[in-house]
């Protein structure tokens, strides 16, 4: 029996350390002991500072009170300079942090969004196999890299804030088209309702077959959170959004193949000295 098989058995029996070790094996690229695609996850994304972590903490409290178990994969970017990463998201999910039914694992992007491609879905599968009923993939920010990450989830919740800047950021990144559900957080602040309206009207001019619901919530005073949790269960994705997600996954896979190519460094060097053109470089990597 392989190491991952053994860890899986122990993890299914409730050995938390084994689960954690199993996730490390997957992150290091080992093969998953669980059939691919058996798990189901919710991606949570949104511009920095809109209150995603606080909101997730609130939702987790509700799920736990309803007898569910929640695992969060919190993804942060690696520093392009040092390759290190600061993974600090836990600090805001305090209330739920000591429950046996709550698990948080921080992941660094290791500098390329494709880098998580091979491990994110297997991690979700293994968590599901071990009985975790809610699996969230959370990213900080809403740039292209973050979208690539949440595109691995089956459904996507976009969290936005009341500021116009937040909404514009989400629009620019193209995340609104991917979202199955949109929560405008900080409804205790004056402009939240207006932000919700502006997103609704932005959606209504689009050509989406079924527009995502836009809900107002406040992670501070708790209003709207129960409704949000219920809406997550009711949400149905659309073929249009599914197609967009698959597209992002394909691009991730492509990136990852490119960056992992044997000839990558060689081709880079050739580009730097000018002995190869960009299209020759692409051709050379594709031929392997």
């Amino acid at each position, binding site marked *: 029996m392989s190491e991952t098989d053994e860890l899986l058995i122990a993890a299914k029996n409730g050995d938390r350390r084994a689960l954690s070790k199993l996730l490390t094996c997957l992150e290091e690229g080992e093969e998953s002991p669980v059939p691919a695609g058996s798990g189901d996850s919710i991606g949570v994304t949104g511009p920095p500072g809109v209150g995603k972590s606080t909101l997730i903490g609130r939702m987790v409290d509700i799920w736990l009170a309803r007898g569910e178990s929640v695992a969060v994969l919190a993804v942060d970017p690696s520093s392009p300079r040092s390759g290190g990463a*600061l993974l600090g998201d836990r600090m805001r999910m305090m209330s739920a942090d000591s429950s046996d039914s709550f698990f948080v694992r921080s992941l660094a992007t290791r500098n390329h969004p494709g880098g998580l491609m091979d491990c994110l879905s297997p991690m979700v599968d293994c968590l599901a196999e071990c009985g975790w009923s809610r699996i969230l993939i959370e990213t900080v920010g809403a740039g292209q890299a973050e979208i690539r990450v949440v595109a691995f989830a089956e459904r996507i919740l976009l969290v936005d804030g009341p500021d116009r800047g937040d909404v514009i950021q989400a629009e620019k990144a193209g995340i609104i088209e991917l979202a199955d559900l949109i929560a405008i957080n900080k409804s205790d602040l004056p402009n939240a309702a207006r932000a919700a309206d502006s997103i609704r009207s932005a959606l209504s001019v689009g050509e989406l077959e079924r527009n995502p619901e836009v809900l107002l919530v406040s992670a501070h005073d708790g209003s709207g959170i129960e409704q949000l949790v219920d809406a997550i269960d009711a949400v149905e994705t659309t073929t249009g959004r599914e197609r967009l997600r698959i597209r992002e996954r394909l691009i991730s896979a492509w990136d990852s193949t490119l960056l992992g190519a044997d000839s990558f460094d060689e081709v880079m060097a050739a580009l730097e000295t000018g002995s190869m053109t960009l299209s020759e470089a692409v051709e050379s990597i594709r031929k392997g």
Partner: protein
Amino acid sequence: MRIVVAKPGLDGHDRGAKVIARALRDGGHEVIYTGLRRTPAEIVRIVMDEDAAAVGLSTLSGAHAILIPRLCGGLREAGMTDVVVFAGGIIPEEDRPALFEEGVRAIFGPGTTTSEILDFLKTLDERAEAGEAIGVGEDPGWHWE
């Protein structure tokens, strides 16, 4: 290396912890910062879930004499004997031998340079490679000077 940086105890200042966390990141490590006012049991749980190789504790309040041994004991009880524990902050000279005895592998006082901490982590790698004790549940004979 995956390193949890934790701030046990009740005092509300985490500037020191954040400076350490950032320095370790800039040194190429993956750092999980726990936020303020964590109990030893919570820190043990975080180290377990994150499968961290080391945990760095930042303390200012004088709570180290109780909290650090409790954390070390908690890690051993949970079977995480190979996890490295180190500490930073204001820890009086006379308290240090007892902490080293508990399996703490380094204590960094105020004014420690980042490069010293990174050197310590490099040494850990070398020792681990050579099969020498670094974990909190292993022979406490060696610590960083």
